[in-house]
């Protein structure tokens, strides 16, 4: 039996695990004891990560649409067709008629190649990936405030913190190994403050749990900051030396007295005062947030408010002091770092910056497009109106993950040509003209960057299933077919190119990653040991900027016709659109169906009991899950996980987006509930 060290393919924690291989077959998983993130533990998904890779549903050979069905094809046929059709569409309608979705499930090297493919081969900046749907608000919000949009601390610092402020993160279920560190910190005497409308498991351990109304985060945070200022708890020295733009911000704060905020958020003014005092006065304070902050039409403002809070109290730039967005996907940090975004190259170098563009043009020997491209939601809109003709989707399932699915389906159906590259057939591949089978995490080399910016090496446990190929190989082969040479001996050579062109990855080379557990960027040169915490002595962009924000209600608050507020999220046993976890026996057995969480008081009023079938409808569609009656979800709110295609929560969700980040408001929309079963 062989055991190969690799990185978990599920969430952004980036746990170290071993894949067990017997007779050339993956037979198990076990945790790494020495790994700084998981320290011998794993969550249930990690423990079962071995199973999906060997599932018989894996795509094993390329498929080409012939009429209504998809027929087996050779790689040559499939790639020739893709190259010809993309080339044709590019000639006829221009490069911007093609859109690319890269993947936060794929490696850094693959994301880099995909963005190179979009920009150098196709000549478009229309490249985006699911970070748009989870943390685009962070990338934008924190970059403007600090100059860098990532977790500022390391996971291993958590246990030494003395205060943890967790807002909009169901940490123990969605980032279990970070939850583990938090619990240990609490055991060691740290104070835990949780702000979440739902009573999540981590909230059970909170010393103070603020259950504000969904979508009122800006008001809540402004209220807390109002108290910090009015009670003189500001770290004046820090604000003076390290930040700018404080005065207009302070002016705006005055409008958010605790009493006003209580009216908006439903959180008692006294609790707001308590939290403000504790947060400001404690040293070693870490703030954590996740989708509860970002997935709103005010996502960027929510993030800015968090950034303002940490600057106001000087809780940043030190170990155990900082602001920590918890990234959802195993490599969503990396996919952003690699520039699989419409406006930046790798390392967040702007496409509009002529110097940066010139650098990439010289390296890639190709004239590059100037204007930023389309985001996911904009691509869907463009497809709907017919200006986007083709899409190439790698490792994403927008027909389950994007809001307002009926609309998304219509848009995708209007495309002239759709290529899907994935490991399993999914809702999106059902509409594809060509399906390219990819290798799973267990079958390839490369790196993932976890939520604490740790770039880690994957270990290849077995060969690719069937005729499938690693994504990087497919991209390179396709580029060759389209007349652009992409030739690398392996992912390590791609990483060398990344290091050359990306300042923050300058010293990140494969051979350096194999001793120890990777390197945390920024790592500018090959002797740099990596950076465990950011913004030491000065912010990435020099001075931190207070950006004034204003509270705005959600786009679609509940009303008479649709009286419930729907918020969506994940379950601990499942992951996103379920392509992997729903093919894992134990995970699927645990949560085989969609349940809508409803408060007992609401349930009683509607005559709904446990497991009653209900119809949940929004202005965009309806689904029919069974009910789970629980006090975890507050009155007037229902919660639906978005994993289940049988009752896809995203049929209901509102596609309204944040004006800056274009992130949709998954966390709030209005629904009505009807009982249809007994």
């Amino acid at each position, binding site marked *: 039996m062989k055991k190969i060290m690799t990185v978990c393919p599920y969430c952004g924690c980036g746990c170290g695990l071993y894949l*067990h291989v017997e007779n050339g077959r993956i037979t198990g*998983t*076990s945790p790494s004891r020495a790994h700084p993130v998981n320290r011998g533990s794993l*969550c249930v998904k990690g423990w079962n990560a071995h199973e999906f890779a060997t599932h018989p549903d894996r795509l094993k050979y390329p498929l080409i649409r012939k009429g209504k069905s998809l027929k087996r094809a050779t790689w040559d046929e499939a790639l020739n067709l893709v190259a010809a059709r993309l080339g044709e569409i590019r000639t006829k309608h221009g490069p911007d008629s093609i859109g690319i979705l890269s993947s936060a499930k794929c490696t850094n090297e693959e994301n880099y190649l995909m963005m190179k493919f979009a920009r150098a081969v196709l000549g478009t900046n229309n490249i985006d990936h699911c970070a748009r749907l989870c943390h685009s608000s962070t990338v934008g919000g924190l970059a403007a405030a600090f100059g860098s949009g990532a977790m500022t601390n390391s996971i291993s610092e958590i246990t030494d913190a003395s205060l943890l402020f967790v807002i909009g993160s169901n940490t123990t279920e969605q980032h279990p190994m970070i939850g*583990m560190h938090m619990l240990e910190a609490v*055991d060691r005497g740290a104070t835990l403050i949780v702000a979440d409308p739902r009573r999540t498991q981590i909230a059970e351990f909170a010393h103070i749990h603020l259950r504000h109304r969904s979508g009122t985060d800006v008001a809540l945070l402004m209220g807390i900051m109002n108290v910090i200022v009015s009670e003189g708890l500001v770290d004046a020295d820090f604000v003076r030396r390290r930040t700018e733009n404080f005065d207009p911000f302070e002016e705006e704060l005055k409008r958010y007295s605790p009493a006003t905020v209580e009216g908006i958020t439903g959180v008692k003014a006294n609790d707001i005062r308590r939290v403000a005092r504790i947060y400001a006065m404690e040293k070693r304070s870490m703030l954590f947030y996740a989708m509860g902050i970002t997935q709103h039409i005010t996502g960027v403002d929510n993030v800015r408010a968090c950034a303002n809070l940490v600057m106001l109290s000087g809780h940043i730039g030190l170990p155990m002091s900082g602001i920590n967005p918890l990234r959802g996907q195993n490599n969503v940090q990396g996919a952003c770092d690699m520039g699989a975004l419409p406006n930046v190259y790798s390392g967040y170098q702007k496409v509009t910056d002529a110097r940066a563009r010139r650098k990439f043009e010289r390296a890639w020997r190709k004239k590059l497009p100037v204007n930023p491209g389309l985001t996911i939601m904009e691509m869907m809109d463009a497809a709907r109106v017919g200006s986007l003709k083709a899409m190439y989707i790698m490792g994403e399932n927008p027909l389950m993950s994007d809001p307002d699915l009926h609309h998304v389906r219509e848009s995708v159906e209007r495309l002239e040509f759709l290529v899907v590259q994935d490991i399993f057939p999914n809702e999106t591949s059902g509409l594809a003209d060509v399906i390219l089978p990819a290798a799973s995490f267990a079958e390839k080399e490369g790196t993932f960057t976890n939520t604490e910016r740790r770039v880690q090496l994957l270990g290849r446990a077995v060969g690719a299933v069937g005729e499938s190929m690693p994504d990087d190989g497919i991209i390179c082969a396709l580029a060759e077919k389209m007349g652009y040479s992409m030739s690398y001996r392996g992912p390590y050579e791609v990483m060398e190119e990344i290091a050359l062109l990306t300042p923050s990855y300058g010293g990140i080379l494969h051979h350096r990653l*194999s001793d*120890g557990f990777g390197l945390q960027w920024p790592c500018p040169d090959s002797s740099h040991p990596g950076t465990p915490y950011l913004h030491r002595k000065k912010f990435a962009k020099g001075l931190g900027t207070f950006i004034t924000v204003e509270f705005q209600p959600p786009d679609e608050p509940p009303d008479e016709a649709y009286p419930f507020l729907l918020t969506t999220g994940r379950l601990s046993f499942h992951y996103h659109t379920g392509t992997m976890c729903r093919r894992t026996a*134990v995970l699927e*057995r645990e949560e085989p169906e969609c349940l809508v969480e409803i408060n007992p008081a609401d349930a009683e009023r509607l005559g709904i009991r446990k497991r009653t079938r209900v119809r949940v409808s929004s202005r965009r569609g309806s689904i029919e899950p069974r009910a789970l009656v629980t006090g975890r979800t507050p009155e007037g709110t229902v919660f639906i996980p978005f994993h289940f295609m049988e009752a896809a929560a995203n049929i209901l969700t509102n596609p309204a987006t944040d004006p800056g980040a274009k992130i949709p408001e998954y966390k709030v929309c209005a629904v009505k509930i009807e009982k249809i079963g007994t």
Partner: protein
Amino acid sequence: MKNEWILEKNHLSYWLRQLRKERDLIGPLRDEGKDIVFRSVEQIHEVILDSPASLPSPKEFLIPQYDPMLRLKVAGHELAFPSRPQPVSPDVHMKESFGKKRVLDLMDKKKRVIFGVRSCDISAIRLLDRFYLKGYRDPYYEQRRKNTLFISVVCNNPDPTCFCIGLGTGPYLEEGFDIQLTDLGNRYFVQAASAEGIKTVRGMSFLFSRPRKTDLDDQYEVFLSAKARFHKRISLESPRRMILAGRLKDDFWQKVAARCFECGGCVYDCPLCTCFTVTDRRYPDGVERIRLWDTCLFKGFTRMAGGILPNEKRVLRTMRWYYHKLIHYPETLNKFGCVGCGRCAITCPGKIDMATIATEIKGLALNGEEE
């Protein structure tokens, strides 16, 4: 004549090399300077002789995480299965063809020798034997058990989490092992207990010499020093009595359960836990039935027809895990369902492992807080 020998350390590599000719040699190896894991040994000199507890336990070689049990192949045409594979039910033991369907037997016939196992794990395997081989004999387990030779090492390097010493399951064993080694500095004191163990040593008797009186004294000294190295001394008897006397309030278990992440790690890593699930995978040319590790800590483990979950509350499931190990095991097998290997303490993200909880219960007993 006692089955005791002396093996010069110089001869160990040679011995293992010979054993490897007939079996897959598995031992604790350091992975690129990071973890120590049990895997197939390529370079014999890299085997770690005083390894810390491995994750998961060596039960993975007897009941693997992913265990194909049988495969149905259909000659010529596909079997019609509903879109969601339903369990098919041919007899496990059936090997001959029936009709056009052929049941292929996927018994694992590989011979293995696992080197460097700890005493606690050997104690656990003896209990697994009673579970899997008494009454209904599990053919998959039996086959692997028969083909696996364990060479255990007297443990003189316990982890801080270890507590076998209070349970009589380590750090050394008097009986029940295949081959047990005691490190005497430049040589090993070798004991063989099982028939296979004795045969293995005798088959290469030229490597071994008879122990002298001083070797026995040295071995005894190692036993004493091994015992002295433990940080934890935990008795499971007092928690058992507290539970049986009904002296733990629900509130206690509520607090424990609140910390459970439902990762399953304690069960997966436990050398004694045996929960599994069976699932069928549909292939174009048939179906494969596999057995996978599962855990009773999940509510779906006991789901009944109609979707009823008898153990829906997490506290019931968490409690059950302790009850099984502290109450049911002693009742049925006359031993605690815990060998003190400490793996749950390493792996539990909520820190509600056996040692911690047993200590807490004992603390309550001493303080008389619970009535």
